[in-house]
């Protein structure tokens, strides 16, 4: 997985305090209210209490109670391990969110009164709709939107990105986050959230036990696990009655041990942690999800709608080629283009300089007057000290300019211009005061690696659709170069919305990225709407995720996080059920060892004694939970492959592995236990 998480803060690592806190939490979660949320572990807790009762009873009536005590302790440990898994996941999430939030804890704000005067209040007093003034060197006290002014802002505290960003009122880049620093100018920010209700606060609530809601797939899985628990409860409760008929007696403690071993404690214990860990992975990638459901849905995405600019291409057009016309030498065109662009501050201009230098131009000039681009002339250039005039610009504007000066236009110019346009580029005609020199091809440059990324997505069954305002010709060329499955040219925001609706009617789940206010309806309609943090408040409200880094390629990562979440759940469920086979073979012969010696043949693991068999199975059952916590938190590794290949792989590892591993592990535990019990 490609995690672009920042490394500037100790986020995600756990210190000793956090672990101690998690341990305490595991005990706190023993309360019935908290335990009842998880039917599987609740059953174990009830079993523990019954065993404890037998232990106490045995102790007071002077009967041997060592076995009952051992079982009680192992069962208690099982519950604690499960609680610990959840607590650790929560602590990590909290830690991640807290370090994001800590920056704004003690901020004060200059709130504007209705008459325009200012008052200083603590940031926690701010309410939605309040306006605050923030000037150079001050921290923005709360999430909000710039309503007056423009400023450059350092968002490193939140995103880890140190380059300042520009935030301007009335544009699509007006959103600001609490805790970030204003580096220049002074702005007025309208607060968009009440304290405790910012996206970050909501995200923290999502990882904490009390208000955490089960996501749809988690709920369905919980139902299935509860059903299995009832099945095993029926198996165990009816067993003494059946056994009595064949004159076999079954010990209550052993039956409880059997029950706990059979019910899916592994997945039951780890299920909450897996869900929280999914949210944590999103947080770690600097994505704030507004609900656990959003993260889960991400795995189902069939179609990604990606804006071309910024996601697929670098966004700024760059010079990619020089095409000479009318017998001009290459070097002449290059030098002319270079000279005309030396003082040009636009990215296009810089890229022309860069390309010309790369190809060996060494021309330079001191002085001269730069003529900047304007919407009227649609060209720019330079008037050199020696009187030479060089211009570069759109083809029709340049033709008109040449016509005025009676400069001959070579006939092959038309062809050259068209060829570049057809390939998705923007032709820039270069001429001086004597002749037309040629054309500079400006093209969108497809980002490095996106093609591979799209191929991986395709392997996982996710289609990518590129959205661009370009004309169809240009769009087609870029689409082919980037390897997207489809594109929408000359797209307006309402076209985007329509496209999402069409895809959804076709049964597909759609994800998109947006930042502008006019993206809001589409963000709300999409199954995953990833809003850029730099975007407007409307966009951030409409989407169900916010990317603090404002990096549109995050969408790909979001899909992976969602898939990983579901795969981890499925894999551990399979593992948990597969484990039961070995546990049956350990415990069933042990249950009836005394009354039906013939069943000893089922003791295929040759466990030493019934007591050691039951304890070994129980210990394995308990230990497997902490052993799998790292996997639950990290998630099952995901590789881009088809569902069929993925299934085969996971069935082998977690299904077959789940059958075999406990046979080996229980045998080993038995070997270790035998001398202890014998003593």
């Amino acid at each position, binding site marked *: 997985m490609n995690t672009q998480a920042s490394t500037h803060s100790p986020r995600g690592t756990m210190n000793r305090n956090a672990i101690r806190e998690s341990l305490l939490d595991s005990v706190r979660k023993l309360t019935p209210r908290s335990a009842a949320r998880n039917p599987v572990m609740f059953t174990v807790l009830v079993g523990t209490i019954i065993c404890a009762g037998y232990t106490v009873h045995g102790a007071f009536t002077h009967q041997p109670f060592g076995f009952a005590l051992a079982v009680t302790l192992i069962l208690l440990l099982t519950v604690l391990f499960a609680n610990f898994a959840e607590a650790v996941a929560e602590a990590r999430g909290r830690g991640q969110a807290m370090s994001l939030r800590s920056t704004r804890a003690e901020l004060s704000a200059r709130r504007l009164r209705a008459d325009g005067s200012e008052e200083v209040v603590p940031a926690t007093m701010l309410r939605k709709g309040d306006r605050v003034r923030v000037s150079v060197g001050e921290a923005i006290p709360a999430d909000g939107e710039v309503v007056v002014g423009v400023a450059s802002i350092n968002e490193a505290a939140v995103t880890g990105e140190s380059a300042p960003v520009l935030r301007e009122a009335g544009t699509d880049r007006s959103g600001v986050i609490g805790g970030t620093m204003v580096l220049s100018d002074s702005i007025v920010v309208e607060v968009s959230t009440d304290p405790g209700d910012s996206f970050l606060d909501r995200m923290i609530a999502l990882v904490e036990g009390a208000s955490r809601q089960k996501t749809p*797939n988690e709920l*369905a*899985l919980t*139902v299935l696990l*509860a*059903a*299995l628990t009832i*099945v095993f409860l*029926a*198996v165990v409760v*009816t*067993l*003494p*009655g*059946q*056994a*009595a*008929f*064949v*004159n076999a007696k079954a010990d209550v403690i052993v039956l409880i041990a059997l029950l706990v071993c059979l019910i899916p404690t592994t997945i039951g214990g780890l299920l909450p942690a897996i869900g929280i860990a999914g949210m944590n992975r999103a947080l770690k990638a600097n994505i704030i999800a507004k609900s656990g459901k959003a993260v*889960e*849905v991400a*795995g*189902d995405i*069939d179609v990604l709608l990606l804006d071309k600019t910024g996601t697929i291409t670098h966004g700024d057009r760059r010079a990619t080629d020089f095409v000479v016309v009318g017998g001009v030498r290459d070097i002449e065109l290059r030098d002319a283009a270079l000279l005309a662009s030396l003082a040009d501050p636009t990215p296009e201009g810089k890229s022309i300089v860069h390309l010309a230098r790369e190809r060996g131009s060494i021309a330079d000039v001191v002085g001269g007057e730069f003529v900047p681009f304007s919407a009227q002339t649609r060209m720019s250039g330079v008037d050199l000290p020696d009187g030479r005039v060089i211009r570069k610009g759109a083809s029709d504007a340049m033709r008109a300019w040449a016509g005025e000066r009676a400069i001959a236009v070579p006939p092959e110019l038309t062809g050259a211009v068209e060829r570049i346009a057809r390939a998705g580029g923007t032709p820039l005609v270069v001429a001086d005061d004597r002749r037309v020199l040629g054309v500079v091809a400006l093209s969108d440059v497809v980002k490095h690696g996106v093609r591979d990324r799209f191929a991986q997505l395709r*392997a996982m*069954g*996710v*289609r990518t659709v590129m959205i661009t305002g370009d004309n169809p010709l240009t769009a087609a060329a870029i689409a082919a170069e980037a390897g997207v499955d489809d594109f929408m040219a000359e797209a307006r925001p309402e076209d985007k919305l329509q496209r999402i609706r069409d895809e959804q*009617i*076709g*049964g*597909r*789940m759609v994800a998109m990225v947006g930042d502008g206010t006019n993206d809001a309806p589409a963000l709300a309609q999409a199954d995953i709407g990833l809003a850029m943090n730099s975007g407007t408040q409307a966009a951030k409200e409409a989407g169900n995720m916010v990317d603090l880094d404002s990096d549109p390629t995050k969408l790909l990562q979001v899909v992976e996080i969602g898939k990983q979440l*579901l*795969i981890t759940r*499925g894999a551990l*469920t*399979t593992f948990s*059920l*597969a484990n*039961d*086979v070995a546990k*049956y073979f350990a415990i*069933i012969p042990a249950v*009836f060892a005394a009354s039906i010696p*013939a*069943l000893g*043949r*089922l003791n295929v693991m040759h466990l030493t004694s019934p007591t050691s068999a039951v304890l070994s199975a129980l210990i394995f059952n308990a230990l497997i939970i902490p052993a799998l916590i790292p996997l639950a938190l990290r998630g099952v590794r*995901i590789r881009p492959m*088809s*569902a*069929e290949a*993925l*299934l*085969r792989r*996971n*069935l082998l590892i977690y*299904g077959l592995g789940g059958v075999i591993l406990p046979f080996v592990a229980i045998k080993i535990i038995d070997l270790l236990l035998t001398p202890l019990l014998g003593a």
Partner: protein
Amino acid sequence: MVIVIAFALAVLLAWPVGRYMAHVMRGDRSRLDVVFAPVERLIYKMLRVNPAQGMDWRAYAAAFVVSNVMLAIVTTLIFMFQDLLPLNPDHIPGMSWDLSLHTMMSFLTNTNQQHYSGQAQLSYLSQMTAIVTLQVVTPVMGLAVLVAVLRGIFGGRNAKTAVEGQTRDLGNYWTDVTRATLRVVLPLCFVLSLLLTWQGVPSTFHGGWHATPVDASAGMAEQVIPVGPVSPMVAIKQLGTNGGGWYGPNSATPLENPTPLSNLMELVAIPLLPMACIFMAGAFIGRRRFTLLAFAVMGTLAVALTSLAVWSEQQPNAAAHALIADAPNMEGKEVRIGPIDSALWATLTTQVNNGSVAAMHDSLNPGAGLATMAAMLMNMVWGGIGCGLLGYLVYLWITAFVCGLMTGRTPEVFGRKLETKEIRLLSALMVLQPVVLLGLTAITLGIPAITANSNPGFHGLSQVFYEFTSAYANNGSGFEGLGDNTKWWNLSCFFVLALGRYPAMLIPLAVAGSLAAKRVAPESNGTLRVETPTFGFAMLAVIVLFALLSFLPVLVLGPIGEWLSLAATH
């Protein structure tokens, strides 16, 4: 050898029959309309139904339930008052209320579990009206519900035109039942019945024959040999996964099964329609791979179970160990049929929920006994007509749920998502079987006064567990050796029969109804496909694992314990 021939013949015949069934259930026009259409129109007029009217899943389920309640009332009354009704030359008295209820539910659920002995306790009228009607109609109901479910999981008959939120048309229950009865089951029965009559199975309205036994030492001056319209009844008994014979000893008696040829015909008839259902399903939904995988999964289990049973019966009977040289287990077998055919019959009749028998299952060696119980617990290795494939679909959904998660998407089957609602329904069905079977077995064993079994120990437990399992699987075969015509057995089985039938049909129908209305996600590389070998293996694992996890302990205390103990003593 006979095993291979029987299986091959069944598959070979099931293929064209299945294609024909798909054609019938789609409601395609055919040349046979000339014969059947007028009769069908008459039936629709009598039932006052509009055959063109589509039904959503609730209406379909309601029609199914209503038709069952009506049949239940009429049938129970016939059984209770058969002494007052005509066509009773042997003056058989009316049945007790509890036996009537049990017998009614047993035949209404296509189970044919018999707590009575056919020839002695049912009049000709009861056999020919109540029993035969139910034997013909109830398997067809299973087929109808299956067809409705298949329509549902592909969005209903109006899938192409329906807009979101519109009710989905799963077909018309009355039309489905009528067409399948007239065009599929009755013609097949007619053919088999003729073939059996040719082999010597009685087909008469004459009262029982009086005969003088040749061997006077039997101590009988005269024996009444009951006859009647036996061959049509045997035909529908075998074809309709019914199993309830005219005679108590079922297909072990020469009067029901006189020759090796009749034995082969009856054997082949057992799995014919359940197998044909699989062919029909593939043709009906236009996915040949679906048929292929269902056959592969069921076939694998069938081979395993059949091998275990046949191998087990070739082992000597432990009780005869010291008496005779090691020879196959002949206890409780008809000498004409022998151990191999008997074992094959036993395993086939339990895989398919037929329940007709040609040997005493009570006397099977423990391994074969285990095989018959395992087959009924899974209840989808061919299974009942329609019901078998419904059971297969339930396992398919559950497997798809777990496997779907493992592929990183919300699980879906044929593009429709399995969500909490569907999982809740399926979970209820999963829980029901172990709770009912294990609970009742424990209760029955715990109260010796109601157990009424003839053996102590492992075998006695098997007798009780088998009876409930057979009832729940709607199989109807008996382990026997059980004094089962008591109020406890009649009434407990009455409920088990109903619980084994109706939830197993209505829940898949509800799931299909819910899936039908969902948006269809087009297949992509990321979609879990449920017709691949990988998925087949996963399904096999889920089926075996689930049966094992739910029932291993009780089987350990029953046949497995018996097996190990016998092995330990010798």
